[in-house]
């Protein structure tokens, strides 16, 4: 084999040559050239004498420079549609692509993959801590309880104070780039929508994506649908998809997660920028243009822009509380993180990314059930920045308790996974993200699940003291424990309530402020989800609990 350079001549597309046969000769394509085939949208198809017929979907004369050819072999390039070419590549390399989608990161950087929940060193450290606390509890029961309570109380308090600080910082006006790029200046943009058992959302998402104000010739829309999910595939196919829409079938495999589907689809992404949307999303129509303008105005090391998320179904207590939660998170907390340069755990959707950077860092971790949060931290650890995009994607809030619990459990499980992965080598993380990033990571990612797990313990002390009076703790030093717990609970919940109210200010949704008074109940539900997530991490670490959508797909 030799690399074809065509004697310095640029190869040409022969548009009037014999059409390709229906079957691609799989033996002609070399697995080592797979990245080349994907990048240049070309695939050796069949041989006719000394001529190699290649399918080409690039429409670019230079597409075949570098194609590996046998000696004295000529290559003819026959134009085909991109969907047909992708289907052919998928057929030929499905197994390899699927394997890469699942294990590429774990192979390349095993320490950054959640494939192993804890490393032996981490397990030993945890066991050591538990043993030390156990021994101390036996020898000095009250002293240990006081020290633990004060430590946990301090952790709880610092988490809340950090959030209040982020709200203050995030409330400042952001200098967002003015104006929109010219239509001629818009790059190719890929919209990636992973879907699984969401046939009922097909019409909604197609309509939302069709509403995007972006030239169709500069847009690539990919639906990543699991191969065994014929229902969703069928529903999408029924929508009379425009030519820039493609459906990629993701081969079955484990772990069956959204990040694995995204990794698989990443092979077919052509855009300079890439955004992930969920099936129930409704992005603001000019979001892609805003993203391009923001990327153009930002330094190269800004690899990702996180759009704000909120909900269109703000009805019912749970959905309204979720709205309060999201408004605070995306309108203030993430903006605050952005401002002070602390690693930002990305939200599940509307992450606008530089495609080259995603490929460079190995895509998403398919074993992490909050792969987006993990990606944000990994980007920061590699020296990239994540910023907030001043545009909103509206989605559907899980408004029934079982559905909400499923979703929140997964998020908290994913946060624990993310924390465990990045704390495998704390020194390395410290070196990579700096002291501010390191502390911010502990408080924001660690603090999110620790405070969820800690909250019920404080409530237990409160309930006992409310039922029997604080005097019940008067024995020995237990009163100190009770007082510290109560102070933590009361101030913590008061601040949670206030921050939840403030979160509504930016959108002018103050008519929901009264709901914030019930935030302690909501945070108790978060705690239940936290414990559920923790148990699931121990029993089924990679299990992706699906959130059901579609109740209000077309309100």
């Amino acid at each position, binding site marked *: 084999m030799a690399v074809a350079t065509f004697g310095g001549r640029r190869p040409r597309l022969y548009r009037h040559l014999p059409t390709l046969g229906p079957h691609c000769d799989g033996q002609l394509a070399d697995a080592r050239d797979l990245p080349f085939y994907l990048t240049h949208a070309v695939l050796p198809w069949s041989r006719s004498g000394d001529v190699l017929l290649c399918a080409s979907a690039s429409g670019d004369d230079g597409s075949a420079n570098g194609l590996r050819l046998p000696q004295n072999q000529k290559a003819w390039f026959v134009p085909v549609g991109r969907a047909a070419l992708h289907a052919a590549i998928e057929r030929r390399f499905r197994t390899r692509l699927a394997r890469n989608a699942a294990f590429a990161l774990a192979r390349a950087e095993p320490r950054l993959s959640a494939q192993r929940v804890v490393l032996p060193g981490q397990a030993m450290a945890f066991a050591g801590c538990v043993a030390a606390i156990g021994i101390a509890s036996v020898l000095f029961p009250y002293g240990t309880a006081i020290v633990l309570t004060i430590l946990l109380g301090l952790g709880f308090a610092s988490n809340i104070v950090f959030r209040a600080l982020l709200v*203050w910082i995030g*409330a400042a006006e952001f200098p967002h780039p003015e104006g929109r790029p010219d239509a001629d200046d818009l790059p190719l943009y890929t919209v990636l929508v992973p879907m699984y058992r969401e046939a009922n959302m097909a019409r909604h998402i197609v309509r939302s994506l069709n509403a995007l104000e972006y030239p169709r010739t500069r847009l690539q829309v990919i639906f990543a649908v699991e191969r065994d999910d014929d229902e969703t595939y069928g529903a999408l196919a029924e929508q009379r998809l425009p030519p820039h829409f493609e459906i990629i079938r993701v081969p079955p495999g484990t772990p069956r997660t959204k990040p694995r589907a995204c990794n698989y689809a990443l092979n077919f992404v052509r855009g300079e920028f890439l955004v992930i949307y969920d099936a129930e999303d409704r992005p603001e129509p000019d979001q892609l243009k805003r993203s391009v303008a923001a990327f153009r105005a930002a330094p190269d090391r800004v690899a990702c822009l996180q759009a704000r998320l909120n909900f269109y179904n703000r009805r019912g207590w749970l959905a309204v509380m979720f709205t309060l939660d999201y408004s605070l998170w995306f309108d203030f907390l993430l903006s605050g993180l952005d401002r002070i340069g602390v690693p930002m755990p990305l939200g599940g959707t509307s992450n606008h990314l530089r495609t080259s950077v995603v490929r460079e860092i190995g895509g998403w971790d398919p074993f992490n059930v909050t792969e987006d949060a993990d990606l944000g931290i990994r980007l920061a650890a590699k020296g990239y920045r994540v910023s907030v995009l001043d545009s909103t994607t509206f989605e559907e809030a899980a408004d029934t308790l079982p559905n909400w619990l499923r979703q929140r459990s997964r998020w908290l499980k994913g946060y624990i996974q993310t924390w465990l992965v990045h704390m495998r080598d704390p020194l390395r993380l410290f070196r990579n993200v700096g002291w501010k990033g390191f502390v911010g990571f502990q408080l924001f990612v660690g603090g999110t699940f620790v405070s969820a797990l800690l909250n019920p313990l404080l409530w237990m002390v409160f309930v006992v003291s409310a039922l029997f009076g604080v005097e019940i703790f008067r024995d020995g030093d237990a009163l100190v424990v009770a007082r510290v717990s109560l102070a933590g609970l009361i101030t913590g919940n008061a601040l949670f309530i*206030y921050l939840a109210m403030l979160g*509504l200010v*930016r959108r*002018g949704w*103050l*008519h929901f*402020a009264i709901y914030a008074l019930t935030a302690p109940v909501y945070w108790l539900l978060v705690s239940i989800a936290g414990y559920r997530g923790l148990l699931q991490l121990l029993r089924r670490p990679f299990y992706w609990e699906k959130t059901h959508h579609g109740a209000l797909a077309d309100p």
Partner: protein
Amino acid sequence: MTAYVLAPLVLTLIWILFFRMLRSADYPVPMSLAVAFVCIAQAGLWVSPLSAAGGLWFALAMALAASSALAFAERQDDARAIFALGGSLAAIQLADPSGDIVAALALPMLAGLPRARFSRNAGLLLVLLFIPCLTAIGMAWFTTQTHFNFAQWLARNSQISAASGFVESRSRASWVLFLAPLLPAIVPVAAEFRSRRSWSVLALVLSVVLASFATVLLQISRSPVIFMAALAPAIPASLAVWRPEDRRTLRVLLPPIASTVLSWIVVLAEFVPSVR
């Protein structure tokens, strides 16, 4: 920390807030510096640390409240302004025993609810009320449980106690006279009477004045000098409301100069008879 260190520190903070208030109203730096210096020379601010009163803390909290009330009047969708306003009202509650009354009176007036749905206005009021209410509840609980009143403790421990009793009011008229330094502020406030910012300044002044009368009615022992100090921020705040054509002309300086001179005349005439 002794009052010899604390008093200048607090005065400096108040001066910074005056300066910021003026700068945010687009006064040029030299003019903002000059006005802030004239305003900081108000008699109330200098005499209250010498009295048995904690007026300086009250003045600092009022300066914070005035600054955040102006910001809130400008933008009601600004979380920072809402947080700062609630926080500064809580600071007023902590700074002086009459602070609860001031906050309770000021808040509904400051809210200046927009013409919006009832539920939205109720929500805005709820957000604004939250910190002051929580502070009041917290202070009440703390006082009942430990018999410790933070505001009284602050009043007792943050001034030059050796000079206690140095400033005494001579007659009941002092309860009206301490308002005299506010007279020059009428000009700028009246010039912008219809603006929301103007109403914010008026609301704060009114609440302090009413609270001072309430302390007399309730027989809470408070010196009028304290309220004089607390009202000192009203002068730069009223200038921040004012939008004269040319903010570099010397006439901008007239109200603060007149106010400061008046404040010293009142203090020397009414409160420090032994000095004459």
